[in-house]
């Protein structure tokens, strides 16, 4: 079973307490009505579908909080987790090729 570190509980807990919630750092446009159909489609549906490190959102049932994680989609390894609202951190050195 995967163990995931919750940045709010400051504890590493089994994945059954967590729910995946899609890609992270997708900001809702400030003025949706000003967007073209293509831009709106991109915002709603187009995702990076990364092979390798992927910034994504997770929710922990324990504290009821969404947070962000960097997970390698190939190895399923969690490289880091951080609180929601923080800027996207750079990739850890060892994963950059």
């Amino acid at each position, binding site marked *: *079973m995967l163990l995931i570190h919750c940045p*709010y*509980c*400051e*504890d590493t*807990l*089994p*994945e*059954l*307490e967590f729910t995946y919630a899609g890609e992270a750092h997708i900001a809702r446009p400030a003025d949706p009505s000003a967007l073209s159909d293509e831009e709106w489609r991109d915002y709603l549906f187009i995702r990076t579908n990364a092979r390798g490190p992927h910034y994504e959102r997770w929710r922990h*049932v*324990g*504290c*009821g*909080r969404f947070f962000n994680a960097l997970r390698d989609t190939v190895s399923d390894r969690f490289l880091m987790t951080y609180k929601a609202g923080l800027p996207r951190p750079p990739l850890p050195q060892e994963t950059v090729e």
Partner: protein
Amino acid sequence: MMTSQKHDFAAAAIRIEDVAPTLRLSLRVKPAHRETLGRALGLDLPTRVGTRAAANGTEALCLGPDEWLIVAPEGTDPAAPARAAYAQAPHSLVDISDREITLRLSGPAVLDVLASCCPRNIAAMPVGSAVRTVFDSATVILWRDGPTDFRMDIWRSFVPHVCALLAQVQDEVMADL
């Protein structure tokens, strides 16, 4: 109640009992107003997830960075001073007494029984702490009152499912499986 009829064994390895209904309040308040509101409630609201504070029969459990569960005896109104402090410390305080049913689980086999359906390492929970976790996918709040003494708050509609599982695990424990 759905509690199993099987808890009459002599020297039971696990006892499952209903706990009398209590008043439960869900408190949401921003960290900036935590201290002010805590003073109004007469409780030092804990800031670390999973820790508890108690005063005058009222108990507060920190569930998240801005979320607390307050448990008090039925018939009391711990929310009254909070209403008076609303202007200084805006918050949300909701009565959720009927949302959950509480079971007390105790006995030497309680850790094994809980480990059967809880993914978390229950044995590592400090006595006097409490966590929100899952019991076979049903969200529960687990309070550790003693080394082998737990309370479990279960959402009302999940109680039949949780009790059926507990009864089955209890059978397996009694049969030494």
